[in-house]
């Protein structure tokens, strides 16, 4: 599904990603862990095409397509979704209008007619139940006055509406209380089809108890320095990153 080769990226003059190689096959869940500032969110932003990040070297192939030659919305239409680490507010744009525009843009890209208003509202209702998000929040502007946890829940609600095939969860667990984490994670699992893949960025094991990764990668200073199975996450939870860093220095 996703093939990242020797990816280098920078913000301004500062190189942040220093040669990333990562392959994610259909149906695989990959966890990405690493120290603060290592470049995890940068990698996510580069995958979805945030114009603030400049790719200087390397390639990303998504289902055979050259992702780097596509703009942000084309990548979204191809099935890529990112749950933002810090979702922003968009005052004055209602959740409903925002979702309608997103859903219909996706449909248009697929050559489908826009959804009828009644069908759209029905879909909103159904998906809302999945992540147990309050109807009241839907009457507000996008994320306006939402608590930290509500914003994260709203991200997964949007994912439910858009049916992506590749999801990036950038610290979706942070800010969620214990119950909310379970609801959101279970919601995510319900949405998954056998072909759905995900890159799950987290600092904690608890999210991975719900969303079981096939692989765990450790990103430090712009490079993936270690890859392992699910037990690697538990080891990091217990011991931190120092042992990995030490291993790097000794090598």
């Amino acid at each position, binding site marked *: 599904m996703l093939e990242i080769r020797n990816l280098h990226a920078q913000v301004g003059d500062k190189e942040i990603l220093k040669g990333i190689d990562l392959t994610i096959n259909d149906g695989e869940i990959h966890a990405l862990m690493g120290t603060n500032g290592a470049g995890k969110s940068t990698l996510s932003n580069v995958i979805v095409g945030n114009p603030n990040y400049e790719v200087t070297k390397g390639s990303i192939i998504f289902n055979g397509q050259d992702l780097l030659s596509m703009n942000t*919305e084309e990548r979204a239409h191809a099935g890529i979704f990112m749950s933002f680490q810090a979702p922003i507010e968009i005052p*004055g744009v209602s959740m409903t209008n925002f979702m309608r525009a997103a859903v219909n843009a996706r449909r248009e890209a697929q050559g489908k007619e826009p959804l009828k208003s009644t069908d759209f509202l029905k879909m909103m209702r159904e998906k809302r139940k999945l992540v147990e998000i309050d109807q009241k929040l839907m009457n507000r502007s996008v994320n306006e006055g939402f608590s930290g946890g509500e914003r994260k829940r709203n991200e997964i609600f949007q994912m439910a509406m*858009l049916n992506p095939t590749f999801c990036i969860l950038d610290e979706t667990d942070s800010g969620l209380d214990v119950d909310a984490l379970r609801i959101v994670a279970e919601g995510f699992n319900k949405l998954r089809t056998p072909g759905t893949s995900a890159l799950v960025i987290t600092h904690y094991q608890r999210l991975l108890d719900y969303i079981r990764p096939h692989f765990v990668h450790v990103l430090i200073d712009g490079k993936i320095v270690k890859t392992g199975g699910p037990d690697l996450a538990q080891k990091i939870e217990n011991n931190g990153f120092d042992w990995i860093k030490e291993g790097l220095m000794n090598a």
Partner: protein
Amino acid sequence: MMKSEKQYIEFYQEASSIIKERSCPVMNAVRDAAFRQFESSGFPTRKVERYRYTDVDTVFAPNYGISLTPITITPSPFIFHLKDAPINVSPYYNRVANTKDSITALNTMLSHDALLIYVPPYTKVESPIAIDNWLRGKEDTMMNRRFLIILDKGAEATIIISDRMAPPSQAIDHHLSEASPLLEKSEKRKYLTTQVIEVCCHDNAHLDLYEIEETTSLCSRFSNVYIKVGRDSSVRHNSITLFNGLTRNLCDVYLTDTNSQVTLNGCAIGSANQHIDNNTLIHHQAPCCQSNQLYKYVVDDQSVGAFAGKILVEKGAQQTTSQETNANLCASSEARVYTQPMLEIYADDVKCAHGSTVGVMDESALFYMRQRGIPEAEARTLLKNAFMGQVINSIQYEPLRQKLYVKVEKRFRGELDKCEDCRLCK
């Protein structure tokens, strides 16, 4: 003196007798004085404080051909030709308007017909009074429109004045046939309009006044609105520039007695080379009055938006509350915004605030929407719409508010001038 006023002076010297013949005594009584005023002062240069942002001379220089056709009025118990006024209008006509302003002077000397809206005491007009200024004709034209609006004691009304192109029947022609000569032609014609609206709102009267411009990039409009408010009254004026060429709106308000309120709201949308200049002056002359102003602009491409608004609190106007806000969204790097909120206070017990902001498109919001698959152009439209929402939300008359939601959105999509399902407009 500049040359552009010459043709108007000469026109008046030749045609004043015809104008007077077609007009009525109340209007003629002040005509020559207005002419002398115009003749001596000419058009304002950009050095004149209230004309800093609009170049009058260039607009008035061409010869448009001055229209002397009478106004056709929609039958209504509240609308009259001034000459048929049911009351004595001489205490009102050209009283609150100020002919020291050259545009007002020019309008006073050239307008031969005026429209009166009179609402008798304690009358509540249920459905809005709608006035449509259709711009049409096969030739370039200069029009001088004049309105007098009087709300007598305890009267209430909603008035909607619209500037628009060609009547709906032609739009249907456009829909049905490839040849619609009238619409085609009027869209290609240059129109110059001067307009003076005088409003007199007596005690305990309530007026909701809307002005909506939806013309073409070849239209120039100079509109001066003068509002005099009595005691315990309220006036709301909404100025909405949906589509235009060059527009200069002036609004002067006189709060002459206690306990009244005035709200001036403006929505200005510019693209291409459009120019929108709103200039307001609120005279707080009496105690315990309130004024609120909210003008929002979205300027794109190379368009220009200007706002200058002054709140003048006179000596006796204690316990004045006044708020003035001008917020601008610059959607392109070539668009320009000039903003100048001003406060002049001669009383000590007042609460006044004014402020202005100029912002650009929120890049992170754009990115967020695009990540969800919303194309960039659509995302921009949503943000512009959101920005303008506040002004449209403030519209009291519900059906108009709903209509404007749709129109504003269409405007941002660049679809305002397209008829629905029209082959020609595709």
